[in-house]
C-alpha cells in the first residue's frame, strides 16, 4: 500500500519509524524539538518521543558533528540535523578528519553509524549563505557516504537505509523538494545505498541529474517527448559510493549524455560523472561530447531573477538536451 506524502513528510515518517523500532536512534540539532525544525521536517517528533530522544542543541555545529561521531562510535545511532547545508562548513573537522577516518585509522575495529541530514539548495531568496549545495566536498572524502534523494519515496527508503548503514552518511535534502508530493509505500522499508535509478526510459539522450534537478530533468523530458526526443533520466541517488553501471549502460544506448546539477560547475559532481563515462566502455559509443549543465560559478545572488539564472531551470535542461541531440560527432 502507498499514499501521497510530501518529501518532508516522508522524511519525518522515516525518522519516526526508525525511532519506534530502534532505541538507539535519537534526533538532535538546532530547533528540531518544539519548533519542529526550520522547515517543519521534524514536527511532532518531540511530542512523541520526548526531550531525551529529540534534543535541541545550542547553535554549535562543530559539536553537533562531534556528538554524532562520539555517540555513534559507542553504540548509539544518532540522526543529526544541520539546519542549512551552508552551516556544515562549521562541522567540517569532526566530519572530515574524525568521523570519516576513524574506522580506517583504527584498523577497522570501530564503526561510526550516524546520519547527518541537511537541506541544501537555492530558490528561496535566502542569498549566498543559506543556499549552498556542497555535496561534492563530501564526495571527495574517503569514508563518507553521500545520499541525495529526489523523490518522497526515495527519501524515506534511503533515509532508513542510511540509518541502518554502519558508516557516517551525509544525507542531503533539498528545500524546494520538501513540499513536492509523491506516492510513498507505507511501513518500514529500506532502499539500498549506492543504487542508481533510471527514472525515465529513452533512447536519444541520457540526462544524469541529482536531487531537485531530477524533477526538472523529468519535466524537460516530458516537453521533449512532445517534440519526438526521448530522454533517459538517470538519478544516482547516492553520490558516494556511486553505482556507475546504470549510467554507463544508458550512455552506451543513447550515445549522448548531459549531466545536470545545481552546485557550481567547477569542481562539481558532474566532472566526476563525465570522467567516469570517458573512462568507461561508453566512450566509444559517444556521438557527441559529454556536456554539463550546472550552477554558475558565483555565490547565490539575492535578487530573484539573478538567483533563477544561477541555477539550471527546466527550459535550460530542455534546451541543452535538444542541442545535444542535434549535435553530430
Amino acid at each position, binding site marked *: 500500500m502507498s499514499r501521497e506524502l510530501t518529501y518532508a513528510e516522508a522524511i519525518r515518517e522515516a525518522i519516526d519509524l526508525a525511532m519506534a523500532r530502534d532505541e538507539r536512534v535519537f534526533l538532535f540539532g538546532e530547533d528540531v524539538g518544539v519548533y519542529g525544525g526550520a522547515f517543519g521536517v521534524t514536527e511532532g517528533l518531540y511530542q512523541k518521543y520526548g526531550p531525551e530522544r529529540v534534543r535541541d542543541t545550542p*547553535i554549535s555545529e562543530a559539536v553537533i558533528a562531534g556528538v554524532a561521531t562520539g555517540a555513534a562510535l559507542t553504540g548509539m545511532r544518532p540522526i543529526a540535523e544541520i539546519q542549512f547545508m551552508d552551516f556544515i562548513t562549521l562541522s567540517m573537522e569532526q566530519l572530515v578528519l574524525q568521523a570519516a577516518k576513524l574506522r580506517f585509522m583504527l584498523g577497522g575495529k570501530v564503526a561510526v553509524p550516524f546520519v547527518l541530514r541537511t537541506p541544501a539548495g537555492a530558490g528561496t531568496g535566502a542569498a549566498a549563505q543559506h543556499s549552498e549545495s556542497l555535496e561534492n566536498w563530501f564526495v571527495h572524502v574517503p569514508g563518507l557516504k553521500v545520499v541525495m534523494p529526489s523523490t518522497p519515496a526515495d527519501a524515506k527508503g534511503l533515509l532508513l537505509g542510511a540509518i541502518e548503514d554502519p558508516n557516517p552518511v551525509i544525507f542531503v535534502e533539498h528545500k524546494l523538494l520538501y513540499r513536492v508530493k509523491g506516492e510513498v509505500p507505507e511501513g518500514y522499508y529500506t532502499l539500498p545505498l549506492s543504487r542508481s535509478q533510471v527514472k525515465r526510459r529513452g533512447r536519444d539522450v541520457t540526462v544524469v541529474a541529482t536531487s531537485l534537478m531530477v524533477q526538472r530533468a523529468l519535466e524537460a523530458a516530458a516537453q521533449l517527448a512532445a517534440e519526438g526526443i526521448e530522454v533517459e533520466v538517470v538519478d544516482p541517488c547516492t553520490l558516494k559510493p556511486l553505482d556507475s553501471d546504470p549510467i554507463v549502460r544508458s550512455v552506451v544506448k543513447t550515445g549522448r549524455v548531459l549531466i545536470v546539477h545545481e552546485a557550481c560547475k567547477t569542481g562539481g559532481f558532474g566532472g566526476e560523472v563525465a570522467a567516469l563515462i570517458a573512462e568507461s566502455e561508453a566512450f566509444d559509443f559517444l556521438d557527441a561530447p559529454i556536456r554539463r549543465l550546472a550552477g554558475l560559478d558565483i555565490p547565490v545572488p539575492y*535578487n530573484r531573477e539573478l538567483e533563477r539564472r544561477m541555477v539550471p531551470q527546466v527550459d535550460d535542461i530542455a534546451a541543452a538536451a535538444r542541442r545535444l541531440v542535434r549535435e553530430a560527432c
Partner: protein
Amino acid sequence: MSELFADLTPERLRELLHQMLLIRAFEESAEQLYLQGLIHGTMHLSIGQEGSAVGACAALRPTDYILSTHRGHGHCIAKGARADQMMAEFFGKESGYCRGRGGSMHMADVETGNLGANGIVAGGVPMAAGVGLSIQMQRQDRVVLVFFGDGASNEGAFHESLNLAAIWNLPVLYFCENNQYAMSMSIARASKVDRISDRAAGYGMAGVTVDGNDLVAVYRETQAAAERARGGGGPTLIEARTYRWKGHSKSDKQRYRTKEEVKEWQDRDPIARLARRMIEAGLLSEAGLGDVQARVDAEMAAAIEFAKNSAEPDPATILEGVYA
C-alpha cells in the same frame, strides 16, 4: 541631567530618538511589504531592540567599524545608513547597498563603517579580531564593535575570537544583544551561566551586562568600553538584555514563548522609554515627538518609492563580483 542622559545633548538625544523611530518604521514597512508578497526571501526584524542598536552606535565615531548580524537593519541605520538604499537592497534592486546581491541578511554600508550583516550566526565575531588587529597594526584611532546574539555565544568561534582579542589586546567591542532566544532556544536552556558577560572573565577581559532597552545605559557602557579600547585597554564583552517582539523570521509559529511574556517586554519599549524621559525632563514636547514621527514617516514613504522605482540588476552582470 548628566546622570539621566550621560553626556548626550538634547539635540543629540532627539537625533537618537529619530534613529530608533526610523528603525521601527523600517522594520514595520519591511514586514508589510513582505506580507504583500513584494519581497522574495527572508528577513529578521529587530523591533524591540532599537535601544541596543542605537545606544551602541551612538558611542562610536563615524570612522569606527561595526560588524552586524542577520538581524541587522537596526545596526545599519544606527551606524548612519540611508533608508532608501537599504529598502532598495531589500527589494533586490541595483540601487541597493549591495546592488541587490545581498539582501536583508547581507546589508552593508562600507562608507559608514558597516562591514556588513551576516547570514552566519557568529559569522562576524572571528572577523572582528582581524579588524581589531588591522586597526592596531596600522596605529589607527579606531575601534570595531561586533554585534551578535545570545545564540552566537555558543559557537566555538566566539570563544576563539574573545581569547585572541584578549591576549593581543585588540580594540574590539563584543556587543551581545541578548534577546532571550535563538530561534526557539532560550538562553536559559542554551547556557548554564546567568550572564553571558560572565564569560568575559574566562578570557581575562572586562565584561558588563546592561539593560538593552535603556538607550542611555547602553550608550554609557559602550562609550566606556570604546574609551578603554582606544586607550590600549583591550576588548570588552558587553551584554545588552533586550527582546525581539516579532517571530524569529517569517515562518516562526512562536510555540516556545507565551503572549504574556511578549507583552511584558513590550511594556518596556525602548523608544517610549526614552521619549517619556525626554518629555519629563523638558527636552521634548508631545508636539515635538509628533514632528519626529512625521519626519520618519516621510522618509520611509520616500524610501519605499525609491526602492519600487529602482531598476533590477542587469542579468548580463551576473558574473561580476568574484575574481575567480
